[in-house]
């Protein structure tokens, strides 16, 4: 059996999308050279639309020039998946982990990311489930509560998952979310009658679900890491 697995968690608060992307690229390179252990970034983004490798920008329903008016940015990325929205009150996890060391292929890795969000939802009495074939993500009935988009390079992951705690769902009206036309987007706030604790608590629960599902027996927390200078704020 494998030895003890360590996870280092960075609680980052609000991070600009491009800053987070640059940080991930550096961490992927460090992880590949075994300079760092498996690392998990926990953060939120300001309003941002992102596209995956397939560049499905036909799923952006407003002109890119209009985005500034609604206070949002647009970024093209190398991750899998279609168009999505990230914004305040959406919990994001970017695991930078070695799939080879943990013994997972892409499919099993994504299933575990889905399970992470399903387990968190169940803490609030919300029955979520993985999507049907071709609809990767986490659903409550026909409504999507969590999205996934991942990049795997030399067996090291980047990008990850986005779980809707209580984002402004109006932003999703400007896209065909994940390229799926006839399904709604929802949030934990909408799906549960339980009073939600502070978002910091929910983020920590999401991280705990991740650590448990992936079998990490040591979790080291790094609060407000000082890697980024300009755009970092405390959530």
């Amino acid at each position, binding site marked *: 059996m494998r030895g003890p697995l360590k996870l280092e968690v960075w609680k980052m608060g609000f991070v600009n999308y491009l800053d987070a992307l640059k940080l991930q690229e550096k961490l992927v390179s460090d992880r590949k050279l075994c300079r760092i252990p498996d690392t998990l970034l926990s953060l939120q983004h300001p309003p941002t639309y992102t596209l995956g490798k*397939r560049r499905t920008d036909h799923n952006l329903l407003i002109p890119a020039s209009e985005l500034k008016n609604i206070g949002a940015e647009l970024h093209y990325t190398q991750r899998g998946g279609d168009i999505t929205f990230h914004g305040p009150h959406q919990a994001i996890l970017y695991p930078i982990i070695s799939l080879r060391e943990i013994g997972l292929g892409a499919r099993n890795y994504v299933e575990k990311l889905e399970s992470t969000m399903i387990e968190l939802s169940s803490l609030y009495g919300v029955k979520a489930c993985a999507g049907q074939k071709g609809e*990767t993500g986490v659903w409550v009935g026909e409504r999507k509560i969590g999205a996934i988009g991942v*990049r795997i390079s030399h067996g090291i992951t980047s990008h990850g998952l986005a779980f809707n705690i209580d984002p402004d769902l109006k932003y999703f009206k400007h896209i065909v979310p994940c390229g799926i036309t006839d399904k709604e987007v929802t949030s934990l706030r909408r799906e549960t009658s339980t009073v939600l604790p502070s978002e910091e608590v929910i983020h920590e629960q999401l991280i705990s679900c991740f650590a448990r599902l992936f079998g990490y027996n040591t979790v080291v927390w790094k609060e407000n890491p000082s890697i980024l200078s300009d755009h970092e704020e405390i959530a």
Partner: protein
Amino acid sequence: MALRMWASSTANALKISCASKPYLSLSRCFSTVLDGLKYAESHEWVKHEGSVATIGITDHAQDHLGEVVFVELPEPGGSVSKGKGFGAVESVKATSDVNSPISGEIVEVNSKLSEAPGLINSSPYEEGWMIKVKPSSSSELESLMGSKEYTKFCEEEDASH
């Protein structure tokens, strides 16, 4: 050939039993591995015929990826380097880099994969080939794993977790 037949027939037999015993994961150890090909630890295969080497990803790789929905390939005329990425595949919202086991010049690219990316799943060693390369170094080919070594490599990789 014997190895291939053994692997296929055992996999077929196991598929029947796996359906009734879903907790068994033995079928993972029995992905098809072909004799006569060379293999990289990142699960790509190379078939060297004359002056051309054909490259793709293995049955083990496609099984662990899930259904491939998109394939990104380079242009012919470009070059590849051993261990470096030359393209990517997307499955289950994950893009995975594909690395070249050898260095050389790209002479042909499988254009069928843009319309039919699932060929990588259904026929990883035949119709799902990705690029053809003129190898620049025969020693790189020799340093790759043979079918027996690669089978053992996959078994050890899957069993240790």
